[in-house]
């Protein structure tokens, strides 16, 4: 009985393991997509997947003369799951390349599988600076952004455009929060700005009362870099406790599209976020993207959705450039590295460190009338900084020599 069970288990496992070989020209190109589809970030993961699927649906699920097959795998924002999911896509589903993951700490896990197997990885939206700086993997190309990339121009925006001289940062105390915060601190201070304090808030914090109470009284503006549910917590506490009457609020990472759903008109006019995308970009590409996304899914796309949409377009151009022969991984990666793509976020191309050079949009919240959604709050760019490199204006070698932003 037991022996038979083991035997049948081995046979089933074997059958799953050795799914048939196939790379003929009319066989589908399989794309493995790694996103959190369960757990706390499931909504963001699904939104990202929607962006990816929307592009391919518009492209007729076809590239380089071959059909496209999307195989998604749930990472639940856990690196242990992500590594298994990446291996499953690589060895059981035999995908041609990987796209993802979303959570910063899943990035190294998936990149490791890419490095071990040689399977190309389009790293998006996971943003950890190190992966296109100190810990690069030859088969990994980033199509999203680096955490501190949009912070550098934002620090100068604080000083030059807003005329601020004394600010206090409120940073989420983990890698993304530290990189995003300290990037802006560096460029702001380089111009002569004074940072009165950086208040670090752990991810486990639930109450922003004590945090805001410790903002130094002489400061001009407060610059929050907070994520997830912290964004709305911060927003509510800010206005409920009357801090809006004491300090200026300038969001570096405060109200992205998903967080705007849960705020009211007190948000109108606020600088909300600096990112590689803003829903209010006034280009035909972006308007078409927003309209078709709203049509398909009934809501405004997040920056995750945009990044996956542009990544799909990027992959499409690369596949076309090599006539669909993705089995030549080096050729595919070279094509990705050479491609110049115009997405909803604007023109994008890779630097020599495999990180996108793209626009940074500093957004303000406005109430706009959308033909399908009615009157909604939306992020609209107040300042666009074009062709921003992850190293900003600095020499890459000098930037790398200085080391990562960390406490």
């Amino acid at each position, binding site marked *: 009985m037991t022996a038979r069970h083991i035997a049948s288990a081995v046979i089933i496992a074997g059958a799953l393991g050795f799914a048939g070989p196939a790379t003929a020209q009319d066989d589908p190109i399989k794309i493995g997509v790694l996103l959190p589809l369960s757990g706390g970030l499931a909504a963001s993961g699904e939104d990202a997947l929607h962006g990816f699927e929307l592009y391919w649906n518009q492209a007729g699920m076809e590239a380089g003369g071959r059909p496209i097959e999307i195989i998604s795998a*749930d990472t639940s924002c856990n690196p242990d799951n992500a590594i298994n999911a990446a291996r499953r896509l690589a*060895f059981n589903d035999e995908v041609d390349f990987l796209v993802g993951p979303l959570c910063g700490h899943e990035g190294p896990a998936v990149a490791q599988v890419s490095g*071990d197997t040689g399977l190309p990885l389009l790293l998006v939206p996971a943003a*950890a600076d190190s992966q296109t700086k100190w*810990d690069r993997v030859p088969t990994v190309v980033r199509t999203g952004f680096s955490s501190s990339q949009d912070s550098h121009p934002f620090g100068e925006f604080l000083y030059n455009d807003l005329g601020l001289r004394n600010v206090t940062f409120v940073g989420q105390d983990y890698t993304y929060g530290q990189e995003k915060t300290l990037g802006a601190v560096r460029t702001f201070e380089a111009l002569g700005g004074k940072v009165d304090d950086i208040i670090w808030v752990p991810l486990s914090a639930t109450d922003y009362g004590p945090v805001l109470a410790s903002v130094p009284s002489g400061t001009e503006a407060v610059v929050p870099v907070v994520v997830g549910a912290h964004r709305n917590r911060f927003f509510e506490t800010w206005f409920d406790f009357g801090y809006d009457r004491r300090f200026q609020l300038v969001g570096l990472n405060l109200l992205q599209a998903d967080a705007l759903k849960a705020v009211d008109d007190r948000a109108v006019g606020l600088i909300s976020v600096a990112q590689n995308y803003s829903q209010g970009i006034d280009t035909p590409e972006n308007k078409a993207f927003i309209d078709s996304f709203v049509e398909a899914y009934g809501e405004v796309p997040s920056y995750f959705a945009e990044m996956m949409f542009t990544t799909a377009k990027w992959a499409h151009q690369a596949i076309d450039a090599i006539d669909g022969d993705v089995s030549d991984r080096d050729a595919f990666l070279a094509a990705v590295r050479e491609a110049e793509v115009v997405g909803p976020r604007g023109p994008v191309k890779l630097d020599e460190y495999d990180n996108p050079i793209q626009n940074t949009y500093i957004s303000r919240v406005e109430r706009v009338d959308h033909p399908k959604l009615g009157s909604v709050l939306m992020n609209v760019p107040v300042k666009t900084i074009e062709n921003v490199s992850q190293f900003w204006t600095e020499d890459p070698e000098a930037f790398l020599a200085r080391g990562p932003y960390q406490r």
Partner: protein
Amino acid sequence: MGRLILLAAIALALATVPMLGNPFWVGLTMQVLVFGLLAVSVDFMIRQVGLFPLCNGAFFAVAAYTVAMLETGGWPTVAAVPAAIAAAALMGMAFGISVRTGGVYFILITLAFGQMALSVATSWTALTGGDNGITNIPYPAVAGVGPTDLSQMFFVVLALVGLMVLVYARIITSQFGLTLNGIRDAETRMVALGYRTVTRKYVAFVISSVFAGVAGVLYAYTNQFVSPAAASLLVSVEAGLMAILGGSGTVIGPFLGATVIMGIRNIVSAMVPGWPILMGLVFIAVVLFLPRGLVGLTGRIKRARP
């Protein structure tokens, strides 16, 4: 003796996994063994001492981080591994103060200790690499000899987990193990009999931290990276759930539970979109109908047969 044969048969069956030639199955089976060993460390406290700790993820993580830092810092494996286990044991000695409490208070104080460790792993980026963790951990090597790929690493893990299981079986059947059961069932009576019950619980707690530390060492070497996820509350809670699901108080149970949980998460998740709900239903069903866990199922089958 019969149990030893069963264990040997299971180990032999597992040894065939690398022959499938598919790193997905090799990696997943390794994770089951590693998290199964962590579940054993938790079950030791649950079943033998009657306390539910929520900080074993911290021991697991401190050992994993120690290996990661030392190995990437150029230390040899023979130094990194003992240092990592010592780190887990030292943390166990410090957190061991919690055995002076009991019941709900024990759960809460160990929860607080666990969260402290997580907070260090997440926020002290200069030391731990923060959310990025520590990557590029090499495979272990003693005098230049060691595994060079996933399949070879698998046998190292299998052998070490097997060894730890034998040690564990020895501990719970020893006189020390039996006095722990006595403390669990009737602490005041054990005190009256002249046993220093708090000391024994303290020793048990440190033993548990060492087992969790060994699991953490294996985790660092198999995954080749460590991130704050290793220290998360979920790791500690799931280790307890694995033990209860599989069959608390048995040696096989925690591994059985690990197989089910990892299987649902990594295999069923690809087929069923709402897999966390399925996981919940499995927990409820086991707790309601199989209070002795999946291991209890064999007893039921035996009884049902004439």
